[in-house]
């Protein structure tokens, strides 16, 4: 069945495209390796059938399984040369080789990543999302049993627990100002801000919040972004079917997935803001929200916003409401690049984010070590896009780790940008609020590993399993 007014067969698209949300809040990622193509196909057959977009929409199953391959994973399956030679170069190279482009240096340099990402051993990512912790344990027990019963070839080389965080009134996440605590339950990330608000509206697939999340025309009207920006085999915003691996049966309804484990240094973030606010006689939580670009509960900083989603930056060309250098504005600049262009210069660089947090929430007054020990907390950052270089890497290089287009010179994103000492973010004031310079920014978020994956359609996955 296809969804209304859609040419997309949602039974052939993996469920993560829809997002697992709060219905399946317990997740575990398995990173596996197979030593032979036969062993790999055994594993694929074990995992099939994958959970589809349609299944997720209908909320039928209690547990959802999705999977994606690295280049080395496809190669180890002995797939046709036609497929291998038509894969985009950044995907073939893998995320480590693109460290310069992505700004993975310093503590985020690939040499500091977790061991499993070294030597291209991860062949397949298996994402399991369950309704309850018990179901997840049971699935893992059976899966591990199956793996050990295989005579040769399949290894689980690493796993990662993930879960959803939801704000609660009795679980404070503010730094100093209790009034900044979200009053209604919202999905949170570890710095205590509402997560998952910036996702695009996509024609035929995601029709929520078209006003604000879609593409803004020069006439000021919003429309959903073309399917082909995010899913292979469909028309994109240039009116063309974008470049995709061949043959079509391999790439149809598939997409590229970027997976990054982003560790969040909650202690450092709070300490930095307390110190800065103390020194400048400011409000630590207000400064934090200007760095992020939204309030903790997701409210936009733009005064004439029609809703949490529906707003433009037209009235704020200098960033006196929502700073030009804030994380939200950098990641999705909307109409920041000039009056009358709408989002024309942004649409080619939108990403679909399907991140999920890991680790327990560090409440106000707690330290990270007492909550999760060495495991820490952070975000499993997942991006789906038709072209990793045009979408994810572009955003990372041009907008996150460079400030030129926002009139911010070389200044980088204050939350996720690379900080090498001496970095700053300027928060221009308005009549009620003094201007602030966040100087000597620290590395609040560190990349601990990850790779580029190909997330095939359901049929293509079955095709790969058959060989």
């Amino acid at each position: 069945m296809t969804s209304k007014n859609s040419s997309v067969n949602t039974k052939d698209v993996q469920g993560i495209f829809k997002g697992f949300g709060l219905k399946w809040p317990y997740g575990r990622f398995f990173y596996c390796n197979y030593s032979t193509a036969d062993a790999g196909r055994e594993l694929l057959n074990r995992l099939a059938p994958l959970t589809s977009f349609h299944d997720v929409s209908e909320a039928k199953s209690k547990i959802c399984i999705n999977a994606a391959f690295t280049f080395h994973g496809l190669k180890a399956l002995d797939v046709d040369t036609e497929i291998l030679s038509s894969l985009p170069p950044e995907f073939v190279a893998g995320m480590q080789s693109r460290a310069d482009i992505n700004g993975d240096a310093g503590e985020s340099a690939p040499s500091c990543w977790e061991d499993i990402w070294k030597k291209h051993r991860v062949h397949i990512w298996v994402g399991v999302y369950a309704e309850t912790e018990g179901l997840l344990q049971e699935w893992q027990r059976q899966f591990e049993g199956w793996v050990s019963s295989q005579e040769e070839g399949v290894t689980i080389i690493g796993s990662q627990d993930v879960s959803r965080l939801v704000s609660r009134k009795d679980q404070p996440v503010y730094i100093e100002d209790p009034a900044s605590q979200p009053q209604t339950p919202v999905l949170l990330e570890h710095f205590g801000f509402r997560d998952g608000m910036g996702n695009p509206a996509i024609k035929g697939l995601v029709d929520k919040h078209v006003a604000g999340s879609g593409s803004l025309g020069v006439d000021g009207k919003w429309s959903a972004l073309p399917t082909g920006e995010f899913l292979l085999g469909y028309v994109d915003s240039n009116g063309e079917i974008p470049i995709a691996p061949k043959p079509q049966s391999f790439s149809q309804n598939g997409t590229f997935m970027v997976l990054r484990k982003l560790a969040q240094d909650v202690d450092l973030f709070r300490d930095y803001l307390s110190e800065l606010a103390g020194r400048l006689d400011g409000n630590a939580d207000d400064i934090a929200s200007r760095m992020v670009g939204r309030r903790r509960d997701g409210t936009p900083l733009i005064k004439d916003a029609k809703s949490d989603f529906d707003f433009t930056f037209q009235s704020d060309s200098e960033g006196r409401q929502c700073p030009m250098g804030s994380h939200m504005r950098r990641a999705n600049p909307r109409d920041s690049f000039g009056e009358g262009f709408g989002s024309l210069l942004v649409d080619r660089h939108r990403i679909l984010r399907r991140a999920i947090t890991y680790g327990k929430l560090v409440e106000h007054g707690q330290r990270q070590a007492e909550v999760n020990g060495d495991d820490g907390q952070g975000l499993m950052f997942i991006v789906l896009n038709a072209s990793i270089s045009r979408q994810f890497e572009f955003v990372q290089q041009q907008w996150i780790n460079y400030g030129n287009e926002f009139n911010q010179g070389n200044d980088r994103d204050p939350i996720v940008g690379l900080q090498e000492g001496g970095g700053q973010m300027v928060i221009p004031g308005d009549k009620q609020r003094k201007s602030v310079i966040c100087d000597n920014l620290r590395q609040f978020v560190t990349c601990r590993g990850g790779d580029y994956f190909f997330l095939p359609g359901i049929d293509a996955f079955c095709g790969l399993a058959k060989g």
Partner: protein
Amino acid sequence: MTMTPKHLIGKSNPMTVITPVARWKRLGTWLVLFIFRHLPLGIVKQLAFIHFARWITIKREDLPRLTEDQPKENWPYDLYLFTTNFNGSWDQYIDAFGRIESVSKGLNMLWYTSSGFPGPWPMRLFKRYIHYFEYPQYLYYNAYPGAAVRDIDMALQLERKLDDFVARTEKPVDDREFEVLFNAFFDDVAPNLGQTGREDVPTNLEHRAQPLELSQ
């Protein structure tokens, strides 16, 4: 492989595109350029990543020769030279050309007489055309490698505001008054205070200069 000396590379990228124009279209090309020289082009000013963009024609009989005894070329086309400097990435620059309707209309006119020009839409053909006729820069001199156009814009605004502030505080003012003036000045210039200078990672620039959306 570029021969551009690395130490000259700054935050801007050069682009040189030379397209052939059939000789019977010479008058048309001249007319287009004449019209463009006399048009108010406000839109280009909004596209702050363009330093400048220039189109000139080189007549086939005026092709340069190194010495007098070098035989004259009998080349069937005039050459149409487009040269520009821009900040940001190659694709983004060309995207702006194709996606912004008023710009793309202008470009359609400017390259209208060039042989084989597919028009600015569909984008992939347009990009392929530009890339095909793009020539590598063997030498590129950049007097201010640490500044992009936007950096200079911001610095000029800052300079004007600073001069104004200095003039206001020239006469003796008391501490309280100075504080008020200074805070007002700081709020005023806050949007202009991004850090500039050359970037640490040279591969960033090389990557930006590469077209990403050509294949297939």
